[in-house]
């Protein structure tokens, strides 16, 4: 990777971590060939390993958009609980999780769009924090599409976001 260091960590470490050591650490980033040729074993394994199949449509996406944001939240939760078990195989699993994350995001964003009318300019910092968390989890999920725990964490984050938004929107909706 070629990322630049973030400024805060560099600043934080500037006082107690010598530049010479920092540059020597960076110089450790180099190619290292294995002592043995790994290809024969890899070839043997992938010969028996199917590649990713066509992406199936997750069952929970078949739920039609619901009329209200609250009903949407309930439907999303139910669909998540009732989703079919994925077929075995990390490739299939990865694509399935990615598709589920994308669809989940779209559905929650639709629900939040409805509710945001009731929140308006009163959106507190917590909402922005949750939005950033969701974005970070989605980034991590794209890097590691097999990580089901990330999808579950994404769902929890969206649930908290929706719950908080609903609480904020309630006074406006009932007034």
């Amino acid at each position, binding site marked *: *990777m070629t990322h630049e260091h973030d400024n805060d960590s560099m600043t934080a*470490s500037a006082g107690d971590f010598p530049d010479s050591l920092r540059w020597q650490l960076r*110089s450790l980033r180099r190619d*290292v060939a294995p002592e043995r040729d790994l290809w024969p074993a*890899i070839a043997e394994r992938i010969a028996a*390993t199917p590649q990713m199949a066509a992406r199936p449509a997750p069952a929970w996406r078949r739920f039609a958009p619901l009329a209200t944001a609250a009903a949407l939240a309930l439907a999303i939760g139910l669909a998540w609980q009732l989703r079919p078990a994925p077929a075995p195989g990390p490739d299939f699993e990865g*694509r399935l999780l990615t598709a589920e994350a994308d669809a989940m995001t779209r559905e929650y964003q639709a629900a939040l769009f409805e509710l945001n009318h009731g929140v308006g300019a009163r959106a507190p910092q917590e909402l922005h924090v949750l939005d950033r968390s969701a974005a970070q989890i989605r980034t991590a999920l794209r*890097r590691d599409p097999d990580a089901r725990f990330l999808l579950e964490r994404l769902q929890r984050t969206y649930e908290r976001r929706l719950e908080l938004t609903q609480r904020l929107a309630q006074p406006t909706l009932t007034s």
Partner: protein
Amino acid sequence: MLTSAVTDWTPTAAPSAPAEDGDGDLVRSAANGDMAAFEGLYRRHVGRVHGVIARLVGGHAGRAEDLAQEAFVRAWQALPSYRFESAFSTWLHRLAVNTALMELRARRSRPQASDDEDAFETIGSVDSAGHVTALSMDLERAVATLPPRARAVLVLHDVEGWKHEEIAAELGMAVGSSKAQLHRARGLLRSRLGGHHDA
């Protein structure tokens, strides 16, 4: 950074694989099941994949090779999901890191796991490039003996150049924890280097 690399790819879209790595044709062929093309990708990238894994696992040669093998198998499986939105080498590097970290997490959950006791005996095997100085080898050995989690954060941040946000997401920890682990790792590293790197 690999973002959006596994979603929204449409086969009809003009592939925009970064031309500088020259992997595009091999990747497309391998994604269609061409093992010879995948071997070409393996030959090109095995050093980089094995290198980052070796650093993450503390230079345990056998583990690093097993994990590099695992990473290439996972890459083969996942290739159809590669969307040409980042360099293939970047995508593969991420996958290799993830493979190594998964193994570190698994070992962490095993009470009998031994992570670092044989690091000093095995770390020398990473010196295959022939140009490693004695000083950097000392440093490499010192990094290898750090506790696994602290080592992972230090390697990803100080060697690979990742941001704390990326490390935190990859390791499933808070950003603050990543920074704390880095601080801890740097302190341990300096103490293990015996004051040769005082400011």
